[in-house]
């Protein structure tokens, strides 16, 4: 059997295009995924133009809020590319260098200040986006919306805080500075106290009744306005989010992306190689010669799966090593990686053998392998909750029948220290290996007899 394996590796070496694709493809994927992961900043790049004069202040009533540092706040959440004018901002967006441009117009603060006047204007910021594709458009909208929500929240909090101070002044009295002059404000509480002190001095009669009404009003107003303060603060964030994560085994996004890239590579390399190499035995008429006493059909199938495992492990490990340049991987778990790759490759190889046994020509088999592997791989990536429950069940069943999904699960578990246990995935893969192995044996007997 080892001689057959050696022979297949020799043939592979002799087919430069095939061997190149087999190595170049995963390396290319590795580099692209690596660049996409490490190069995509967790903060989106946004062109930022702040035309608001630096001394402009948002004022509440007659007082001005301290500078809230819009620039700093925005650039804390996104990577800001500062531009000089609107044209430059548009150009940055058009070229794709930035996801969007955010322009704070010169009159923004005045517009905000007008909110508390009898003729309020709507404060506006300008956003320039490049909606070249729908996915990107949605992404940009989400980002911008969350950015604006946060900006609104900051302003609202400021207003609430300042408003709360005024409220306290009205309730409790105190000092108030306006245009350089400090005024003493009496406040409702003190007013009530003074009135209560005055009351006994007044004779019973209409005057005393009137003062009683005023005292009653101050008490009522105090207790009602007292609740307004907290209410004002609550308004800035009426609903607090208490997030509870149910499935805590979710791996970090980049680890998952690496697992997907590695499993894709493993699947294509193994399925295509095993199916193609089995079909080649028949294309070269060597199959009857071999199975006539030289090797048993089972041994031939085992050899093909072993070929897939050997090449799959090498190529996938190479790919992971390439990705490790971009993303820190846990090399201490390399033993588990190999276990996951071997188990995945065995199941995928057995599936490839079943395909290869059913067809006679390498070309036909390659096409078949692509047609089966590609859709299953994509179906395996559909997350729950994104399609209807009935459809998801069907997808789940279908993807459980092909080794891609369990291989992906094993891979994810092997790569991610906090990830799911890979035992279940390995068991699943072992079952699929046995099932597809038997299918391949059956197909060989059925189709490959002369």
């Amino acid at each position, binding site marked *: 059997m080892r*001689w*057959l394996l050696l*022979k297949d590796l*020799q*043939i592979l070496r*002799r*087919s430069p295009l095939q061997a190149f694709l087999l190595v170049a493809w995963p390396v290319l994927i590795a580099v692209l995924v690596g660049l996409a992961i490490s190069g995509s900043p967790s903060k989106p790049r946004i062109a930022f133009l702040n035309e608001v004069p630096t001394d402009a202040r948002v004022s509440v009533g007659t007082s001005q809020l301290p500078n809230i540092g819009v620039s700093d706040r925005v650039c804390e959440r996104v990577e800001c590319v500062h531009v000089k004018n609107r044209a430059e901002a548009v150009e940055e967006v058009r070229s794709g260098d930035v996801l969007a441009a955010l322009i704070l117009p010169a009159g923004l603060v005045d517009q905000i200040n007008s909110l508390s006047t009898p003729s309020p204007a709507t404060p506006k910021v300008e956003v320039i986006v490049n909606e070249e594709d729908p996915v990107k458009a949605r992404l940009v909208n989400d980002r911008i919306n969350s950015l604006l929500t946060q900006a609104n929240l900051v302003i609202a909090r400021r207003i609430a805080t300042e408003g709360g101070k005024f409220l306290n002044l009205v309730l409790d009295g105190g000092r108030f500075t306006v245009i350089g002059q400090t005024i003493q404000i009496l406040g409702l509480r003190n007013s009530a106290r003074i009135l209560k002190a005055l009351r006994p001095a007044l004779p019973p009669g209409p005057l005393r009744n009137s003062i009683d009404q005023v005292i009653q009003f101050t008490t009522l107003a105090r207790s009602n306005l007292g609740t307004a303060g907290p209410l004002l603060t609550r308004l800035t964030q009426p609903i607090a989010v208490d997030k509870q994560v149910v499935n805590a085994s979710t791996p970090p996004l980049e680890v998952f992306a690496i697992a997907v890239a590695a499993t894709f590579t493993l699947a294509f390399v193994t399925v295509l190689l095993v199916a193609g190499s089995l079909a080649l035995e028949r294309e*070269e*008429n*060597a199959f*009857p*010669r*071999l199975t*006539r*006493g*030289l*090797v048993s059909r089972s041994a031939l199938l085992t050899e093909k799966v072993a070929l897939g495992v050997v090449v799959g492990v090498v190529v996938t490990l190479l790919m992971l090593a390439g990705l490790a340049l971009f993303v820190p991987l846990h090399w201490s778990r390399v033993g588990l990686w190999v276990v996951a790759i071997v188990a995945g490759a065995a199941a995928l190889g057995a599936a490839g053998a079943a395909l290869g046994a059913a067809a006679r020509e390498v070309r036909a088999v390659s096409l078949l392998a692509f047609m089966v592997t590609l859709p299953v791989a994509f179906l395996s990536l559909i997350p729950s909750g994104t399609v209807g429950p009935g459809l998801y069940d069907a997808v789940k069943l279908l993807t459980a029948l092909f080794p891609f999904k369990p291989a992906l699960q094993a891979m994810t578990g092997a790569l991610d220290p906090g990830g799911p246990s890979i035992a279940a995935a390995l068991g699943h893969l072992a079952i699929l290996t046995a099932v597809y192995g038997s299918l391949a044996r059956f197909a060989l007997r059925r189709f490959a*007899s*002369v």
Partner: protein
Amino acid sequence: MEAGNATSAAVLQARELVKRFGGREALRGIDFEAAAGELVAVIGPNGAGKTTLLSILAGISRPDGGEVHVPQGEVGWVPQQAALYRRLTVEENLMLFARLEKHEDPRASTEQMLELTGLTERRGEIVARLSGGNQQRINIAIGLLARPSVLLLDEPSVGLDPRQRARLWEFVSALASEGGTTVIFSTHDIQEAERYGGRLLVLADGEALFDGSADGLREAVRREAPEAADQDFETAFVAFLHHRGH
């Protein structure tokens, strides 16, 4: 039908062989025996069932009826369509099969076969780049590597030049006469069949029309197609087949 000259020492026996492909009967009850050291030529028109018979004897396909007795694991097989790895070199092909045949010294066997096929100089070449005849030489050499007690050759001389044919038959005849190997080969070359086949089996439409010596066949042809008796043997043989309805 004349009786075969197989003796009681038959190493290979087939009884009432029937093979069907869908509705078509490729073999319709063939009886066949061969003794050790016998050289049997199987001749007959295209589609007569020669390949089908040989592949059943080789154990590659199973008959739908009848039974076959062949020495287990000792049947060598040279298929009509070359069965070799075209992306490997001549030497790699021979080495691979010598190893699979578990030769004690695969390298020595490879050298022997390179010499026999006259391809020693081209041992390092990829088989796909060789001419059809040279590919056929390797195809035969791989079959010979099995060192079988029964050797089945399906149209082995097709594509070989006269010199290479001579070498092939020299080697095969020696296998039969010195090694006691039973050799069964098919051919469309009547002269070749007559010359190297100690015995001739004539197949047509899945039936055996004749089984016996070359002289016996000439005799039968003269008897059944007297009008072609004064022409060459091949023409007379075609007339004979015609008389038998083929």
